Each structure stands twice: as structure tokens, then as C-alpha cells.
């Protein structure tokens, strides 16, 4: 396979060396070997991590155990930096001078290396390198249990994070847990799955001859409290003698943190004679031999972010019994040889062991590959490079450029009195650069669930981002790939509630017609996590959701729908996609007018509810300014959202080339401005269709009654069918 080297990128990977051999040593090595396929790659290794006497695996420090780690000649290696620095750090800086990396990737797993990483990252960043931090876990569990270490990391970590341009985590689980432990700010975060440890696995001998011998169960890895090895021994002990004789259990791993519960359990086991215990850090050759002899691997962790032994098991293609914890679920999601069991449940583990004889000798394909890693890094490096040599802005929003000043210079929010000028943002023509698409999103829904409703596959879950999780629902056809993807930007407040079901029904109708539809709750609203609300923030949400919707669907076409005040969000997000059509339902063309109507509705609602007369709009605005938020009919309106929307007008969304737009105004005041809006956009070369509907727009006072509801239902069906037909015809014409 011919590979293109990126001549302009030089990568240095900073990780653990072989002196304090561990899984990170292997990962650093494998990542170096992978990235060298496309980049000039070097490895800068940490040698002595901590004083030897403090290290739980002190017995193997310096021993030649990591024999499989042999860096290729075209990867320059510096091995390495000691915790006490001295000359080793000076040489490391000289190494960086020599390599002149454009990207430095730090492998993070323990606070022991934090001070060194901080020094190296500062140095590299000062010399123009982009910094990427790859997280293996937030902090080593044993280290974090030592007095003061957690606090030390919490104190210094922000300094390191302030230098980081991009983060890599290995699972959606880490995407949730790590940003909750550390403020990652506005840097890019990517989920790049862990690759296989092929260098530690040798060809397994034929198993036919072993069928009569006991089935070889293997646990390997450091024995620590959270590894749950005692559960495995307990489960094994729960087998009756005849069942136990079918197995031979081998526990390979050095005891750390004086965790002798597994050894105690072995001593007590009625099947102790069927258990082999190797209490030391075995060499790579020995490990390969144990894996080659094994018929199945059992990893009974109580918790885990990621597991090297699990990747070795998958590389060997063995059946593996593993607890459903942390990021492990994602690793084995597509591995057919996995048996998942609950953690700390020896009975379930015992039941899983009983199933293993039936699959003895079977081998399974590993769904993970280093090619995934390479592709992930290729994109990430490109993205961090795209930030233009500057650190990411503090406000991760679409790029907005000042355009010609708007004709509207005196904005009022109550229709009568001008509001203090300082409260009103200057008018801008909004231009969202197509190349400013956000890249800090995990792109897959976490904690999600799927169902099929009338032939439509629906997946609801949470899009995890550094600045909070968005609740997202993706609708798509169950029986075929979608031909396009529509992102729905909903209205706000009570209007969102009355519109909600209409949007769900639209999504199902479009998915039945072969399209994918992404719906979501803006940050801070509904089921999404709290976050500062503003038009920019909501636009970013829409863009993030659009990216997330496109990945699983591979949809080539993209479109946006804005409903009510969501039109202002949709029209901004729309600018990021050159060929996307835009649909607007009962569009709010002027944010200031929207609030005038909303505040009026507040007075009407109070009257209808026989409540004491609500304060005037002026009083409300004063409260908004002083308190930062106000209550509008039971909805919290934040000043930041009010301020950004009041200064926004639909006509300011100016595409650079002709685009297709469908305006579907409802009956009511908002329809008045639609003609002018259509004229403005047509003058810009856009193809604008206007299809008025008989639905009423102030639907927060929608009347009850079955007859009226039926009328609304029929009209809504027509509205949705019109939108569907228009969208399909837009894409049919080349979008």
C-alpha cells in the first residue's frame, strides 16, 4: 500500500520507556510505529518515572521485560527523561531542537510525569508545535490514592491543559469522565479507539490436539484491588469439582499495592490444585507464550477506563469474559467473542465460565485496528493545524466576521422605549466560514438507546462535548442508508413544547422517505446539560449535532430546518454548509420583534391565569440586566441569550452563493415580514419558495377541542408533506 508522507508534519510522541515497563510503554511504541507510516515520527520517552522505592512494581524496574518493544530505525528515540531531570531534561530539549516537531503527542496516565510534561509542552509550544494530549486515564488509581498526589495533579494540570490544542480519548466513556474531572476548555477532543497489541501475540498452536486437556483460562495483568481477580477465583471455586476439572486457571501478574485477596482466595479454593499463580511481571516472550496456550481470557475488573490485556485478548482472537465496566464495553461492542458479565458478581462470572467449553478453539476477528488510529490522528492533526497557528479561541463558536453595518441602528426591545445602548450588540452581517466546522465533538451518542418506530430507526442519547452533553435524537430509515440529513433547530420556551411533537412527526415522515433527521435540545435546555445560552452557543450546538448525524448515516446532503426563533440558529448553522437548503417554519426574522411578542404573551398569559398583573417589559428588562436572568411564563430567560437574539435578524444570514430556501409562514404577525425576507434573499441570488400554511403561529394559546385538533392535525400533515417534497426535490436537483 502506497502511503503519502506528510512532509510538512513532524511528530514526536512522548510516553513511557522500557525502564519502568508498562502498558503505556507498549502503546507509545505501537503508536510511533503507526504514525511513522505517514509522518516523520520520533519518540521521547520517560525513563525513571519516580524514585524506585515508591514504585509498586519496583522488582521489575530496569529488567529487560519489554523485549517486544524495539523501535524501528526510522523512529529516532530519546530514552529518556528522569523524574529528577538533571542532564536528562537538557538532552530531551536538545532532542526536540533536533526533531523540530510540528506536533507533540503526550501520553497521559499518571501525575508522576506531569512536571516533565509541563516543561516539555511549554518548550515545544514556544517553538510552534501543536500539543496533543492522549488520555489513558485521568490519573493512575494507585497514585491517586497516595496523599497529596491528587491535589498536586489538580493544581498543575490546568497549566498543561492551557497548552493543549487537541485531546485524544479512547472511548465515549472517557469522553464523559475526563472532561468531568478536568476542564479541557475549548480544545478539540477526539475519540480514537485503542489499536491492537499485535506485537505481543504469536501464532497460536493448533487446538485440536488440546481438546481433551483442560480448558486453559488465563488472567494476566498487574494484580491490584480494582482488577477483581479475587472474583474470578471465587467464581472458579463455585464450580463443582467435575466442572472445575474441565478448566485450568492461570493467574499471571505482579501483585501491587499489597493486594493479596486473590492469593488468599486461591489458598482457600477447593480447586486450588487447578490454579496456577505467577506473581511477577513476566517478559513479553513469556506473556506471548501464556496467551498462545490460553483457550480463553478472563478480565474481571471492577472498573477500567481501558485495558491492554483486553486488547491482547482481542488481538489473539480468543473468547474473552470481561466485566461490563467503563470503556471496555465499547472495545468489545463489535467483538463476537466477548461474554460480558456484571462486575463484582462471581455467580455471573461462574455462569460465563461454564459457557466457555462450547466455544473452545474458536477465534474471532478483531474489530480494532491501528488504521483507525492513523485515520483519527490524520484528521486531528489536520484540525489542530486548521486553527491557524493560534490557540483555540476561548469562545468556541463559529467564526463571525463584521460585515457592513446594518440599516437598523436603534434597536428597541419593547417597541416603545429604546434600551440602553450598552445592552445591545452592534449589528453584524453573519458569515459562518465553511471551514470553521467544530471538531471538538465525540460524534457518537453516549448512553443511547435505539428503537424502530414504523420502519424508522430512532436513536436517542447524549452527544458528549467538553462543554457539556447535548440530548440528541437521530431518526433514519431502518432499511437503507439515508440520502441526506436534516438538522432541526427548534423554537424556545413554551413554543418549543407545542412544536415538539410536530418536529418528531416530521422527523419520522422524512426518515420514512429515506432521509436522516437530527433533533436536539440546546445546551441548558430540556435534557441537555447546563451551559451558557446564546445564539452563538446554540449555533455551535446545531453544527455539532449535524456532524454527529452525518457520521453514522454517511449522508452526502445536509439541510437545516429552523422553527420559530430556531430560524435564527438554523440560518447561521446553514452558512457552514455550502450547498445545504434551508427550511424555515413560522420564521422569526427579527430577534427584537420576537421578544416584543414574547413579553406581550407573558402579560396575556398572566391575565388568563388570573395571576397578579405581571411587571412591565421595562421592569423585566431591568431585572434581566441586574440579575442576569428572568422568568418568562415559567421559563428562565438568560440575559446572554436575550442579548444575542435581540441583535439578530434573519436577513443578516447571507450565503456566498445562490441557495435554496423554503419559507413556510404560519398565520400571525411573523408572516408579515416573510415577503420582505424572501425579496432580500432573492436579491442575493437565492431560490426562495414561500408556502404559507393555515396553522396559527402563537401556538402557546392553542385552543382545546377535538374538532380544532383534527383541523390542526390535517394542516400539519400538509405542512410536513410540503416540506418533505420540497426537500427531496431540492436534492433531486442537485441541492
Amino acid at each position, binding site marked *: 500500500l502506497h502511503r503519502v508522507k506528510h512532509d510538512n508534519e513532524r511528530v514526536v510522541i512522548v510516553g513511557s520507556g522500557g525502564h519502568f515497563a508498562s502498558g503505556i510503554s507498549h502503546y507509545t511504541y505501537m503508536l510511533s510505529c503507526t504514525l511513522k507510516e505517514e509522518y516523520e515520527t520520533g519518540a521521547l520517552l520517560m525513563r525513571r518515572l519516580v524514585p524506585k522505592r515508591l514504585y509498586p512494581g519496583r522488582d521489575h524496574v530496569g529488567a529487560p521485560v519489554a523485549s517486544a518493544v524495539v523501535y524501528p530505525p526510522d523512529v529516532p528515540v530519546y530514552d529518556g527523561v528522569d523524574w529528577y531531570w538533571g542532564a536528562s531534561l537538557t538532552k530531551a530539549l536538545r532532542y526536540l531542537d533536533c526533531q523540530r516537531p510540528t506536533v507533540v503527542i503526550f501520553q497521559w496516565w499518571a501525575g508522576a510525569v506531569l512536571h516533565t510534561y509541563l516543561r516539555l509542552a511549554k518548550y515545544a509550544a514556544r517553538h510552534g508545535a501543536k500539543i496533543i494530549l492522549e488520555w489513558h486515564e485521568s490519573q493512575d488509581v494507585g497514585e491517586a490514592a497516595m496523599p497529596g498526589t491528587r491535589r498536586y495533579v489538580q493544581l498543575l494540570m490546568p497549566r498543561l491543559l492551557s497548552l493543549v490544542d487537541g485531546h485524544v480519548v479512547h472511548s465515549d*466513556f472517557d469522553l464523559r469522565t475526563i472532561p468531568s474531572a478536568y476542564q479541557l476548555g475549548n480544545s478539540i477532543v477526539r475519540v480514537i479507539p485503542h489499536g491492537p497489541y499485535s506485537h505481543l501475540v504469536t501464532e497460536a498452536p493448533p487446538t485440536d490436539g488440546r481438546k481433551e486437556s483442560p480448558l486453559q483460562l488465563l488472567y494476566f495483568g498487574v494484580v491490584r484491588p480494582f482488577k477483581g481477580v479475587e472474583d474470578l477465583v471465587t467464581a472458579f471455586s463455585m464450580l463443582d469439582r467435575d466442572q472445575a476439572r474441565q478448566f485450568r486457571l492461570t493467574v499471571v501478574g505482579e501483585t501491587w499495592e499489597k493486594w493479596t485477596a486473590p492469593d488468599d482466595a486461591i489458598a482457600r479454593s477447593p480447586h486450588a490444585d487447578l490454579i496456577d499463580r505467577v506473581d511477577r511481571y513476566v517478559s513479553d516472550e513469556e506473556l506471548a507464550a501464556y496467551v498462545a496456550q490460553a483457550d480463553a481470557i478472563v478480565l474481571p475488573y471492577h*472498573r477500567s477506563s481501558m485495558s491492554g490485556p483486553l486488547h491482547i485478548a482481542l488481538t489473539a482472537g480468543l473468547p474473552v469474559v470481561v*466485566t*461490563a*465496566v*467503563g470503556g471496555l*464495553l465499547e472495545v468489545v461492542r463489535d*467483538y463476537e467473542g466477548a*461474554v460480558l458479565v*456484571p*462486575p463484582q458478581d462471581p455467580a455471573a462470572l461462574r455462569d460465563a465460565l461454564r*459457557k466457555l467449553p462450547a*466455544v473452545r478453539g474458536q477465534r474471532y476477528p478483531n474489530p480494532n485496528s491501528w488504521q483507525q488510529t492513523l485515520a483519527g490522528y490524520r484528521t486531528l492533526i489536520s484540525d489542530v493545524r486548521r486553527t491557524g497557528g493560534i490557540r483555540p479561541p476561548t469562545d468556541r463558536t463559529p467564526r463571525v466576521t463584521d460585515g457592513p453595518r446594518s440599516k437598523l441602528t436603534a434597536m428597541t426591545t419593547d417597541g416603545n422605549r429604546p434600551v440602553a445602548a450598552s445592552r445591545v450588540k452592534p449589528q453584524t452581517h453573519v458569515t459562518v466560514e465553511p471551514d470553521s466546522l467544530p471538531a471538538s465533538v465525540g460524534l457518537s451518542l453516549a448512553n*443511547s*438507546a*435505539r*428503537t424502530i*418506530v*414504523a420502519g424508522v430507526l*430512532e436513536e*436517542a*442519547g*447524549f452527544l458528549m462535548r467538553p462543554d457539556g*452533553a447535548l*440530548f440528541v*435524537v437521530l431518526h433514519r430509515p431502518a432499511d437503507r442508508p439515508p440520502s441526506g440529513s436534516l438538522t432541526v433547530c427548534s423554537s424556545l420556551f413554551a413554543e418549543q*413544547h*407545542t412544536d*415538539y*411533537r410536530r418536529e*418528531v412527526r416530521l422527523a419520522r415522515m422524512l426518515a420514512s422517505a429515506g432521509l436522516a433527521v437530527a433533533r436536539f*435540545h440546546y445546551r441548558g*435546555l*430540556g*435534557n441537555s446539560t447546563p451551559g451558557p445560552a446564546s445564539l452563538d452557543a446554540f449555533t455551535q450546538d446545531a453544527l455539532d449535532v449535524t456532524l454527529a448525524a452525518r457520521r453514522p448515516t454517511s449522508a452526502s446532503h445536509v439541510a437545516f430546518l429552523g422553527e420559530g426563533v430556531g430560524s435564527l440558529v438554523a440560518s447561521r448553522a446553514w452558512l457552514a454548509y455550502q450547498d445545504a437548503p434551508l427550511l424555515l417554519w413560522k420564521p422569526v426574522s427579527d430577534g427584537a420583534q420576537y421578544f416584543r411578542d414574547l413579553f*406581550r404573551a407573558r*402579560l*396575556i*398569559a398572566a*391575565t388568563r*391565569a*388570573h*395571576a397578579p398583573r405581571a411587571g412591565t417589559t421595562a421592569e423585566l428588562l431591568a431585572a434581566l440586566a441586574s440579575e442576569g436572568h428572568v*422568568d418568562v*411564563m*415559567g*421559563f*428562565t430567560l438568560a440575559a446572554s441569550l436575550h442579548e444575542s437574539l435581540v441583535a439578530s435578524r434573519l436577513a443578516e444570514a447571507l450565503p456566498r452563493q445562490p441557495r435554496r430556501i423554503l419559507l413556510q409562514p404560519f*398565520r400571525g404577525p411573523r408572516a408579515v415580514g416573510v415577503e420582505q425576507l424572501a425579496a432580500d434573499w432573492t436579491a442575493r441570488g437565492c431560490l426562495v419558495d414561500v408556502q404559507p400554511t393555515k396553522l396559527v403561529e*402563537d401556538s402557546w*394559546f*392553542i385552543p382545546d377541542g*377535538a*374538532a*380544532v*385538533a*383534527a*383541523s390542526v*392535525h*390535517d394542516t400539519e400533515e400538509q405542512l410536513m408533506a410540503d416540506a418533505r417534497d420540497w426537500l427531496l426535490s431540492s436534492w433531486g436537483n442537485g441541492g
Partner: protein
Amino acid sequence: MSSPTPVASTDTPLETARYLQSGTETVFAVYTSPASSPTDLGVLLAHSGPNNFSAHRNGVWTSISRRLQREGIPSLRFDFAGTGESSGEFVLRLDGQPAADVAAAMDALRATGCRRLLVVGSCFGGIPSVVAGVARRDVAGMILVSPPLVLPGAGGMASFRERLREVINGPTLRTVVTNGEYRRWFFGRLASLARTKATVRVSRLTSRTSASRTPEPSAAARPGPGMLIESELARLVMTGGHIEMVFGTSDDNLARIEGHAEASRALRRLRDRRPAGLVWTVFDGAVHGLEDVALQEQLIHLVVERACDLTGRPPAAAG
């Protein structure tokens, strides 16, 4: 060996989307679980039905879930069939699909390890919650937020006089006279309503078919002239559960109970027989519809406090 079998995990994430089977419908829910040491009590949050979704107004249910999570109490908020993300069409019934939805949600919450349930139902959502809860032994308590125990007209349809009173009353007329904005909206609304109804009638005449797509309530669902779910409430109160009615002084639902002699008597009887079992909380203002953020906060506080009481744990922190 087949694909990995999903199982519960101790690393349970904070919030998880769920789809539950409720008869032929699929009901959407969000499960919020504590990070560690969950209590044996789970809280089920039922919203008010049409025009609502799992988070409830201003995310009140979401806020309650997240505060309960901090107290170590798991919770589940869900969409009735035909609302939010669920499948189907919403049917305003006391039993049938809505009660099946509540039961499915209760079962789902139990399946996460909860042994006892506190059910919070908002407005209509409280009614099928009581119907579903009465058949179970795991309901430790219910909080009904402005439940419509007495319907307008007490027979399912508002009487002409009541409907007239909705429009022609002191505050409305006063505002029509004094407020130009309101006056424009009021007459615009009347005109729009008349136009829509006229359209529907014309359409009926021309098609000679029923224009209504909303299923008629079944005989079982058609409420009688008395208080709704009276016997179910009585059974819950007498079997030792904590039943709490939360109203606002301005709530129509409270006024209807107070103006309905039979309902008032029935509730008084229940309170007399077991005063501790039926708690009556009335906030100043309108609780119905949760159209007041300050009252929302009070409600959130109340639910969290009651849940903590039932677990025996003091609330960790306010706010």
C-alpha cells in the same frame, strides 16, 4: 457465541436514554442514576401529557432528577405514548395506554434495582400514575402536582356556563378594556377560533364524515360526575403510602375541588381516616402548568425533600 450481552454496570453513567415497551407502543425515558451507593428508592416523574416532554417545563423534571442524583436517588422521567419521543398518539384516558405507560416506567425503574417508588405526577400525569400505582405494592409515595381530580363540568366536558366563565370574567374583561395589546389579541383569538371551527363544520358537511381524529374515550375512561380516581386514592392512602397533593392558590384544579361538594367530602373523609397519609400542600400562586420559576424551585425542593425523607437520609445540600 453471539454478540456481547449488555448488562448493568457499576460504572453506570449519570443519564441514559431508554425505550420501554408499553403494550404496542414504545415509550421514551431518561434514567438518571447516582454515581455510587444508590438508595433503594427510585423516583418516577410523569409529565402532564400533551404538549410536554420528558424534561417538563423549563427542565423541571431534569432538575429534579439531577438533584436526586446528588442525593443518591435514582430516577426516571418519561414521555407518555404520543408525547415527546414516544410512539403513538396521545389519548386522554384515566386508564388504558397512559396507565400502561406509567406501569412500564415503574417496571423499568424497578429493574434498575429500586425496591420502592416515589411517583411524581404533574397535572394529568398524576391520574394514570395513581391508577397504575394502586395495583402494586412497591409504591412508597405519590406526589400529585395540581391533579385534575374534578374535571370542568365534572363529567368530562365543561358546561356552557363554565366555558363562558372562562372568557367572560372580571380580570379578563378588565384587561380587555384597559390593555390595547390584550384587546387585539383577545378578539383576534376569538376570530381565529371561530374561523377554525367554521372550517371544520363546513368540511364535515361536505365530507359527511367525522372530522375528529381524536379517539373517543372508552366507557371505562369516561369519568363520572364525582371525583376522579377516588377509590384508587383511598386504597393508596389506606395502604400506608405517602400521598401528597400540591396545588397553588390560583389553580383552577383546586378551585374545582373546593367548589365540588362531593369531591371535598371524599377528600375530607380520606384525611380524617389517615391524616398522615394524605398531605395537602398549597403554594401561593399558580402551580398548575408550572408557569412560575420560583414555584418550580419550591416544587423541586419539595420533591427532593420528600424523597430524602422516604430514604431516611437528610438532604445533602440545597440548591
